[in-house]
Structures are given as C-alpha cells and as structure tokens.
C-alpha cells in the first residue's frame, strides 16, 4: 500500500480495521477523540460495529462482551476516561479475554489538561485496576508505529488471552506523518472454541468468568503466563548504547527528542546512547545488557515524579545512578537533556 498523510489517531483507527477489528465502543475525550470520530463512519464502511457509549464504563464492558463473543474489539480513551476503564480491564484479565485498549495520554492528575503527557506510566505498567495482574503495554513513537502496533497488539492479546494496552500520547496522536497502513486481514469470530456462540446439546458449556473459579491449577497457570510474557515479549530499540557513557531511557514522544540529543551530544564528543522501551511492560531488561560502558542512566519523561526510574534501577540491579529529566508543560528540549547528562557525568557520583 502507498504512503498517505494521516494523523496519528486516524492511522491507529484505520490500522485497527486492517487488523480485523470489527467492534469499537468509546467515549469522547481529548486528545483521543479523532479515533472515535474516524471509526464512527469508517467502521460502518467495513461492516463492523461502532457504538458511542454512554460512558467509558459502559464502553469497556461492551468491549468485554464483544471479545467474549469472538470479535477483535477495541476501545480508546485518555486520562480520566482511561481510569474509568480500569475495572473492566481487571475483569478482562480475570476472564482471560483478549482486547486492545488505547490510552492517548494527556498531562496531569485529576482532569489534568489536554496536552501531551506521560503521567500514566505507573497506571499502565502496574495493572491500573484492582488485583494481581499486569498487561502488555506497547508504546509507539510515531504515526507509523501507531499503525504497525495494532495488528501486533491484537495478535499478542489472542496469543495470551489477555488485554493489551497501547500507550500513545497527545503528540503522537495529533501529529501528521506519512504512513503506510498494513494490509487488511480477515478475522474469524469462530477462530477460537472458547468464544461464546451457543451451547449445543451434549457439548460443554462455555463459561466466561474469573478463571480463579475454574482453573484446576490457577496459581501455576498465572505465574507461568506472566513469566512467559516477560521472557518472550520484551521489545526495545537501542541507539548507540554499546559505547555510551550515559544512557538515556525514553519512550514515545520523549524518545524522539532523545534521538536528537544523542546525535547532537556525539557531535560534540559526548557519548550518549538511548534505550527506547517499545514494551513498557514487560520492561525491556534485556536492552540494558548492551550498556557495557555506561556510568549512569537518565530517564526522559513527560512527568514530574520520574515514573520509569524504578524500572531502570531494577533493570540495572541498582548498580548505577539513575536520574530523571522531566518536563510537563512542553515536550523536553534536547539541549536541556544534554546539559543534565553533562551535570550527571561531572558529578563525583559517576
């Protein structure tokens, strides 16, 4: 397919259809609303079902029903709306149901504001709802990745029978870039036997409920499931990490600035590198093996508390200084990042 110019949100929506998604229900909230608006007409064109739900609560529970019935089902939101989806995500996990949920992150706590942010990292990676779970989280850094990750997200969701989250943000969602939408694939709602379709006489009834009630070996099953995801699904991109003295760690919109920072720093002789987590959970611990020359690590995130710092400390077994360069009102500038890196290297601590 040829490249077209699309907004990140629209590319994501079109790519969801290409991935065989035929059920969407959502509720308007900036900066994800273009996904809902786009699918409000486009879903009909491809013979799928679109519902503007009365709330995010209703939306996620419609998705749960559609997923149980076998559809590739999607819902999208941001900040406050994403919080309302957490109960439903917890139920999807509990019942071993695949679905894709997108959080086009906006800034701040409570209502926050509509500009880009990366303040939902903890909520995304720790299991934002109640209970003992995590979900796979993919973090696109471009309009193209917004498109490419949809099929991957649905495949992973089905492989593990587990919801998959996409951590986009206002900048990625709103920017316009050239993008190639992947080929359309067909999804068969009867592909899996476990989906509800009607119980024929003499056959076993399908029950979609917390598998805690039914799984003969629940503890082992869950432990193995999460261990397999952690082992198999770490995704990352390493940029000049091998000889870097200081390694930046950033995802999504922040990682784009960090690429520039690495280039500019190296032009003046400062060896910076970048680890870009593509999966936020599982956190790509393996990426850090390459950082052999590193003296310190610096996360660059659009939040104040440095939400990814703990994960970097764990990935490096607490052996290195890890600091945070945060910027919340604007996308971080690369010269600010370089300055902070220099400070860290100059300090006796490294």
């Amino acid at each position, binding site marked *: 397919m040829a490249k077209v110019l699309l907004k990140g949100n629209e590319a994501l929506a079109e790519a969801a259809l290409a991935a065989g998604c035929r059920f969407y229900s959502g509720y308007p909230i900036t900066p994800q609303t273009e996904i809902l608006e786009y699918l409000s007409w486009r879903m009909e064109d491809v013979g799928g079902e679109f519902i503007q739900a009365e709330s995010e609560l209703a939306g996620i529970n419609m998705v749960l*029903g559609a997923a149980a019935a076998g559809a590739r089902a999607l819902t999208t939101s941001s900040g406050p709306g994403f919080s309302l989806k957490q109960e439903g995500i917890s139920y999807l996990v509990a019942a071993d149901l695949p679905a894709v949920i997108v959080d086009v992150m906006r800034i701040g706590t409570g209502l926050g504001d509509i500009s880009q942010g990366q303040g939902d990292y903890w909520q995304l990676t720790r299991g934002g709802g109640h209970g003992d779970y995590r979900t796979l989280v993919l973090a696109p850094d471009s309009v193209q990745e917004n498109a490419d990750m949809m099929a991957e997200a649905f495949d992973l969701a089905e492989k593990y029978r587990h919801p998959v989250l996409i951590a986009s943000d206002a900048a990625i969602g709103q920017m316009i870039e050239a993008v190639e939408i992947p080929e359309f694939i067909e999804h068969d709602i009867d592909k899996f036997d476990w989906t509800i379709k009607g119980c024929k006489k003499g056959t076993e009834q399908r029950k979609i409920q917390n598998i805690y009630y039914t799984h003969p070996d629940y503890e082992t099953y869950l432990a193995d499931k999460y261990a397999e995801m952690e082992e198999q699904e770490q995704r990352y991109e390493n940029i000049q990490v091998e000889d870097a003295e200081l390694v930046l760690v950033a995802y999504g919109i922040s990682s784009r600035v960090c690429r520039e920072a690495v280039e500019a720093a190296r032009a003046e002789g400062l060896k910076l590198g970048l680890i870009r987590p593509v999966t936020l959970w599982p956190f790509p611990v393996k990426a850090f093996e390459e950082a052999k020359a590193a003296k310190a690590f610096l996360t660059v995130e659009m939040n104040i508390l440095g939400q990814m710092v703990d994960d970097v400390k764990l990935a490096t077994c607490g052996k290195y200084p890890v600091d945070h360069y945060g910027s919340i009102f604007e996308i971080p500038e690369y010269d600010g990042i370089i300055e902070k890196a220099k400070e860290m290297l100059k300090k006796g601590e490294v």
Partner: protein
Amino acid sequence: MRLVAPETVTFTESGFCPGCGHGLAVRLIAEVMEEMGLSEKLLTIVDVACGSLNIDSWRFDTIMAAHGRPIATAVGVKKVRPENPVMAYIGDGAAYSIGLAETMHTALRNDNVVTVVINNSLYGMTGGQCAPTSLPGQITTSTPRGKDTKKAGMPFRVEEAFTGFDIAYLARGSMADARGMIQSKKYLQKAFEKHMNGEGFCLVELLSACPTNLNITPVKSVERIKNDMIPYFPLGEFKDKKEEE
C-alpha cells in the same frame, strides 16, 4: 406448570438458598428457551450478584460480568452475534442502582437485548442492604431503623422511568405462586419473541423472594411479595410496542 425441568437446567452446583426467586427464574427461562427452540443458541450475561450462580445452574454459554454492567456487555455480545438470542440477567441493585446508566442508555438506543431483572427489594449477595427498590420502612442491614423515604426516596418503579423510551417491551411478573409464574413465563416468552423479531429492548422484571436476607421463612417471603410488593410494584405489561402501533 411443567413437572420435568428442561435438560439445560443443571443445578448441580447451584447455591441458591431455599425459596430463592433466582432458582425459579432459571427454570422459567430454560423452559421458554426449550419451547422456542432457542436452547442451543442463547447467550447469557449474568451479574456478579446472586444471579451469578446461574452460570452453574443452566447450560447456556454465559459471561459473568461486572456488577451493574451485564446489559452493556450484552450489547457488545449482540453486535457481534446478531443471530443469537442474548439475555442480560441481573438484580434490582445492578439494574436500577449501579448500572442504571447502562440500563437507561440501552433502552434509549432500543438495543436488541433481553434484560431480566430479579427484583427482591434488596442487595441479596452482599447480605441484604437497602436497594433503590426497598419498600418504605423496610428493615435492611443498612436501614436498621427502616428505610426512610425522606432520605432514600421512594422505591424505583421501572415503568415510571422507562415507558417514555421507544423500547419494544416492558413487563413485570411475580414469582410468588404458580399463577404468577405462569404469567411471568408468558412475559418472558413475549420478550424473546420480540427479541428474535429484532424489535429492540425488552425488559422483564420478576418480583422475587429472598428469605435469607429478609430473615423470614420461604412461605412468609412469598406472602410478602403478594401483600407488600405487588401493591407497590403492579404486575402487567407496561410497554408493548407492536400492539401500540
């Protein structure tokens, strides 16, 4: 009344208390499905409240959905499997309190799902707290001095709220005795007929007993339906779209 239960009623692991209205409703729904030839097609969505026990009481493909959300979940199911009959089965707390928005908006959209509401005038699963349907003065674990309507309002009557919507069907039956159940079964049958004709949202409320939380015998709790509930919650059909037209 039939003597032999349909083979879709399993009850093997059912944990309903003696005299509970839920168990009777399972039986009625299973009979209607069998008689309409829909047993192998029905998809059900139950709430996590006492009705959740249905998942082990009947042999229909079933989702146990979050408290108050089964109707939304049913909408998702129906959109994906429009050929199958789809029923949400929930309590009065789920339908008229925590899930009222979902109940209302599904009615507003006239989505083609059947909703069965078991009205036992309290929160059964959690031990008998006050519900929007609890009667004036009703003693519950959260109204130990009796429900004060000045604070909690009058009991919620679905027909007062929903008949203004462009829905296919709305009826209330009783599970108090054989006569009530025969009538209730007719309402359920009509709801499923309309559902299979694609007419839209159908809600059947069934007045039910919860002897355990009322702390009275099954016989007394049935009398309570007749003497206390029916006068406030009248039986009958409140909306029947085709007949009106």
